[in-house]
């Protein structure tokens, strides 16, 4: 069996929505360079709908593929749905990831969430702060550093 599914390879080799949005309404960045992956998400929001999304990622093949898939899953969707995006949904949409790469999907979920939270904070929109937290890198058990 190949390391990655065809969908992962497709999203890695032809990533969707790569780039930046200079006039983004929300920006989220998670991960750190020491651990080997950083994702940055830019969203544009109009009438509660995510009208555009772009990403920048430093990381392995699955980090790039999960970022790309996450942008596809939230583009054109209501912002509440983006907030609820789970890593599981990203993994399923990619037809699975190797177990030791699952943290990439968590990072993608967290990057989208961070961008939505940034938008909410900027516009003073209330949301469930207990439910939708950003996991601190120091609390992540994925890496030993």
């Amino acid at each position, binding site marked *: 069996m190949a390391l990655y599914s065809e969908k992962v*390879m497709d999203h*890695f*080799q032809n*990533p969707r929505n*790569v*780039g*930046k949005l200079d006039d983004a309404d929300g920006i989220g*960045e998670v991960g750190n*360079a*020491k*651990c*080997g*992956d*950083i*994702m*940055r998400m830019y969203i544009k929001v109009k009438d509660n709908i995510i009208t555009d999304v772009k*990403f*920048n*990622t*430093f*990381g*392995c*093949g*699955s*980090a*790039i593929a999960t970022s790309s898939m996450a942008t596809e899953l939230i583009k054109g969707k209501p912002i509440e749905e983006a907030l609820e995006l789970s890593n599981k949904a990203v993994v399923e949409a990619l037809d699975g990831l190797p177990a*030791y*790469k699952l*943290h990439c999907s968590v990072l993608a979920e967290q990057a989208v969430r961070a961008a939505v939270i940034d938008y909410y904070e900027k516009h003073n929109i209330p949301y469930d702060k207990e439910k939708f937290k950003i996991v601190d890198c120091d609390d992540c058990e*994925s*890496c*030993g*550093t």
Partner: protein
Amino acid sequence: MFVYADNAATTSVSKTALDAMLPFLTDSYFNPSSLYSSAQKVAEAVAEARETVAACLGAKSPREIYFTSCGSESDNQALVSCARLGARKGKKHLISTKFEHHAILHTLKALEKQGFEVTLLDVHEDGVVRVEDVAAAIRDDTCCVSVMFANNEVGTVQPIQEIGALCREKGIPFHTDAVQAVGHIPVDVEEMNIDLLSLSGHKFHAPKGVGVLYCRKNIPLFSFIEGGAQERGKRAGTENVAGIVALAAALKESCEHMEENAAKMIAMRDKLFAELGKIPHSKINGSLEHHVPGTVNMCFEGIEGESLLLLLDKHGICASSGSACTSGSLDPSHVLLSLGIPHELAHGSLRLSIGEYNTMEEMDYIIETVPGVVQYLRDMSPVWDELQKGTREHLC
């Protein structure tokens, strides 16, 4: 174009090795332990292979050559044997280095759990162990020093002869994992004061599944596999005859052509260093002065190694990386970290290891391809973005 640039991982089986082994898979399939004459001819072939290997390594006697299944097995047996021998005399301290292969590091970890003490030496920024560091680490209860001949990731060559002389003077058994050296650079166990040496056939065009442990005659080996009297009772199990014969043939060929092969590989390697070194914010890892002919190890800032490898694969280039993501762990290569390379930079590493079958045209293709792939990944990297904006400091 398809370019195989991962010869430090494994090599193709040479025609010489294949021709040598085929008869022992077909007509001469007999068990060398059997008595009839057809089988005895097979035993003779194994004996001849042992003599060839002994000659290539500069060993005094073929009785010092033990065939194993791989380099890792040889490493395990060498260290455990030295440890058992030491323990009998109350000596339970072993010295090695931080950038050894896991076959060494994990064996040492296991020995620690059994009550042995281990000192792992620093390898400095140039990837070279200092003889004085070895000298300073030696204690009255040191029972083994093990230092790899050439590092598998960065390709740096260690001062083996000098470390061997020091150990000889102190009466401490000296082992070297020479998996990346044998067949590529001169190795002479007598001249270099080596007591035990591990090698693996598939690194010099023999098939996978066969290795050698050289062990000087006054050092008793501990047997891992009990059974028959093969390998003088130190490694039971019917011999991998075809593999053993192929290993000897491949080693002989590699040693006979060592100088011309090295010259060819060094020309290719140096071209890669010169051209890929022009990529901005890249770093060549390890001393260039003490270096095997075929290995190139570099870091590119702002990108991650696995994505680089996957894209190079798409372009037909087979390479390797010390990046975390290729290993199933999240930490980058212990080798690169031991050279003091920061995590951030170590994640973006690339190892190209060339062999004598590679061509200059292939190097040109690598040189044409790598910069574009690096730039593509940098263009989508938030780390590179910060480096460009000056909000993050360059590490190289």
